[in-house]
């Protein structure tokens, strides 16, 4: 038996243990999730009624921007990396991540990056106010002085993500137990492997675009300044070349999680394992050739418009395959509905609804009406909240007993699920309507025409927020006490993680497990 964790604070500061680092990622991500959520509630509170009540337009823009940045880079991405850290070594039968010291570093630079980014809110001129997509020249020539801090924060986040991705690829390719062939790997491992390649491909592009901004702002270049011969549309091409794969970075690991949970509670093997792998790879490939569907109104030539419309529509095919596979996995199973399963089923339904609006948005002529309205806001929240957030919460409920050795309170879990489910739909469904009726994104005030649905959305948002506090309580209560979990936790779940004790020992698989 190897030695246990060090004592005190240095355990966390110096740790190279994948479980400790995974835990830190998850707690960090949850705290960012709450912070980003508070920003969202400021936005929703201002939009409760027409007129300016709570915040000024300038601050409102900082809230929408910070909400987006924090949720994307602070909540969703670190949560998936945390889950990868905890689960991938256990799933492939490895003792730890391949590069444990780098693992420590890629986590510990994150809090500094976010401290830097959030501190801009207290600076002269305020924080980033140009939307999470930070289109130039609003984010360069017209930006508040604090934009430089934002740029360096993004650089650090990028470095962290790239190091995390390298580590995950190295672990998966080199550390699998003998007999764990690629096509035997759990789908969570597969989807993360593909995600990690996406990260390595596009995070440098993001770093490039923010560096060009930095040059424009401080060193007199004119990459994005039309007055100096530059091109504001170039910014959007580069940004979305990063941005579109980025949205898949936030959803592919979710596919893996759901593909682990549904078979467990349907008591039936996952339908179409290999087609799931191929579909994930196809989605990843397509993600590189659809970026300009975010730019249908910038004045692309007709041929470009058509190409990006067709390519975008194609994504429906592999995504459809995945949804059909999950549904077929449940078909003729023997289902029970514990909290992780409830979240996973909600994922399948709501993500599909988000996929439908995505298909509508792909139709370029119709997109001229949808673009930059609340319809788009509804669309990407329907894919991201039930997609990324629900899958992460499902993963926590599913693996928490393995992590801490205690069973969570099932009743509280179910109550929490229904609060989140109802809150989400009440918040985001009406946004489809106001968007179609003509309300644009990123405005602090609107005509009374849109008032009813906005009020409903705000009520839903606060319910959704309350559900997260209950989730926090349930998790803490589970860690502190609770019924002891067995090694298997669930009924015949598949995967190596269930062959070790609950809680998982500090060091697992110091000798490789036999693979059947």
């Amino acid at each position, binding site marked *: 038996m190897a030695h246990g964790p060090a004592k005190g604070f240095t355990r966390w500061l110096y740790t190279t243990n994948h479980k400790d680092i995974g835990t830190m990622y998850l707690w960090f991500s949850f705290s960012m999730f709450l912070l980003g959520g508070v920003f969202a509630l400021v936005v929703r509170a201002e939009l409760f009624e*027409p*007129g*300016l009540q709570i915040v000024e*337009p*300038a601050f409102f823009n900082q809230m929408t921007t910070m909400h987006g940045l924090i949720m994307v880079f602070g909540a969703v991405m670190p949560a998936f990396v945390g889950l990868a850290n905890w689960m991938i070594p256990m799933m492939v039968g490895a003792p730890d991540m391949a590069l444990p010291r780098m693992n420590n570093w890629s986590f510990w630079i994150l809090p500094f990056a976010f401290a830097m980014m959030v501190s801009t809110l207290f600076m002269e001129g305020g924080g980033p106010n*140009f939307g999470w997509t930070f*289109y130039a*020249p*609003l984010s360069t*020539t*017209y930006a508040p002085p604090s934009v430089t801090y934002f740029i360096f924060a993004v650089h650090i986040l990028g470095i962290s993500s790239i190091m995390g991705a390298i580590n995950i690829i190295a672990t998966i390719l080199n550390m699998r137990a003998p007999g764990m062939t690629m096509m035997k790997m759990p789908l969570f491992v597969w989807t993360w492997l593909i995600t990690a390649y996406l990260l390595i491909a596009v995070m440098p592009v993001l770093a490039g675009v923010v560096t060009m901004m930095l040059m424009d702002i401080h060193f007199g270049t004119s990459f994005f300044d*039309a*007055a100096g011969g530059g*091109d*504001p549309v170039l910014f959007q091409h580069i940004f979305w070349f990063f941005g579109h794969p980025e949205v898949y970075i936030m959803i592919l690991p979710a596919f893996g999680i759901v593909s682990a949970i549904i078979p467990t509670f*349907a*008591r039936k*093997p996952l*339908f*179409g394992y290999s087609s799931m792998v191929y579909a994930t790879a196809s989605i990843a490939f397509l993600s590189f050739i659809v970026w300009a569907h975010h730019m249908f109104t910038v*004045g692309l030539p*007709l041929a470009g*418009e058509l190409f990006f419309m067709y390519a975008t529509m*194609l994504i*429906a*095919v592999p995504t459809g*395959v995945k949804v059909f596979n999950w549904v*077929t996995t*449940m078909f*003729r*199973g*023997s*289902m029970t509905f514990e909290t992780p399963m409830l979240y996973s*089923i909600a994922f399948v*339904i709501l993500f*599909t609804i988000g996929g*439908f609006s995505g*298909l509508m948005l792909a*139709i370029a*002529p*119709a997109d001229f*009406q949808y*673009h930059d309205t609340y319809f788009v806001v509804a669309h990407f929240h329907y894919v991201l909240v039930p997609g990324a957030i629900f899958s992460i919460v499902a993963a926590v409920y599913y693996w928490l007993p393995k992590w801490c050795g205690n069973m969570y309170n099932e009743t509280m879990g179910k109550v929490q699920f229904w609060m989140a489910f109802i809150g989400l739909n*009440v918040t985001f469904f009406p946004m*489809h*309507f*106001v968007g179609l*009726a*003509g309300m*644009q*994104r990123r*405005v*602090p*005030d609107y005509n*009374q*025409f*849109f008032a*009813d649905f906005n009020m*409903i959305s705000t*009520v839903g948002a606060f319910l959704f927020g309350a559900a997260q506090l209950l989730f926090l309580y349930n998790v803490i209560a589970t860690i502190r006490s609770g019924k002891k979990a067995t090694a298997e936790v669930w009924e015949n779940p598949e995967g190596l993680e269930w062959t070790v004790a609950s809680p998982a020992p500090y060091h697992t698989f110091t000798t490789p497990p036999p693979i059947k």
Partner: protein
Amino acid sequence: MLISVNRLIVWLFTPILLLFGNVSVQALEEAVQRSTWNMPEGVTPISQEVYGLHMTMFWWCVGIGVVVFGVLFYSMIVHRKSNGAKASNFHDSLGLEITWTILPFVILIIMAIPATSSLVKLYDTSESDVDIVVTGYQWYWGYEYLDEDVKIISRLNTPQDQIRNEAPKGANYLMEVDEPLVIPINKKVRFLVTSNDVIHAWWVPALAVKRDAIPGYINESWAKIDTPGIYRGVCAELCGAQHGFMPIVVKAVEEEEYIAYLAERKELATKIKELANKTFSLEELMVQGEAVYGQACVACHGVNGEGGVGAAIAGSAIANGDIAAHIDIIVNGSKNNALMGAYRDTMSEVDIASVITFQRNSFGNKTGDVVQPIDILKYKQDN
């Protein structure tokens, strides 16, 4: 069919709406008629086509959703452990998997055909009858009728007290402007969209026209309106603090009325030019200046000149110091802050002179200076 769906939605949301205050069943009924939850059909051939595409896509999605969710809910109800369902063990079916790869592909092709034909029409901006340059500014719109020598500036004219909840809101709250864009019906009107500062987007839902206004670019779009009326739109691309406060109003009129409008604008332009040589009294300038301030300055500089997004005018060094510097920052914009743009081309000499006079003699500023339009004209020629 659509109406019944709308009714259903109202039904679903009624309890929540009634619970949270100031909405009545009548308001809901009214909402049904105004269609607060769907895209407008609009008043151009393109907008109606786009609406048709939107609804076609919607029903495809509903159809697919019914099948997929139907199977899902069937399994959830029938194949549950508590019903004694025994799990089967199948996990592959090549035929099934090929079918549900090919079938969606075919459906996508069926969807793409009408979408392609609409897009081609939407992109055909040739052979226009009227050409209008639309320019986005932080935070208002400029319209120039090409070949007509008519330029107008169109600003939000919802009073601040409505925005600040100190007065009841009008029906067109935040959707009203001082000078609407007047265009003729049954004519192909081409919009050439550009920007003076950051990226904006010119969007009028009833025309299905949304084009980004990008500095250094001229984007084209067009509309042929079949019904006279007033159509309202907004800036759709985040463009800074007042992004939500730069609406668009298009007034579509019969051709005779359009011609008369152009003549009237030309006459007005000549009159404004003449006025630049006239000398005004302090009182006249103050009255006009207050009106201009309320339209162009108040959003950033505050109702009492206290500042906000922009610098304070009350007690400011510029408004109490050298007149030339004060004229310069309004005519040419601020050199230090891109948010304070140049008003050289978007405000008349009379308006600039009166707003400067107003700022120098209001909010506690007591310079007693009177700036005349001719001063501005001279300044513009020299600087």
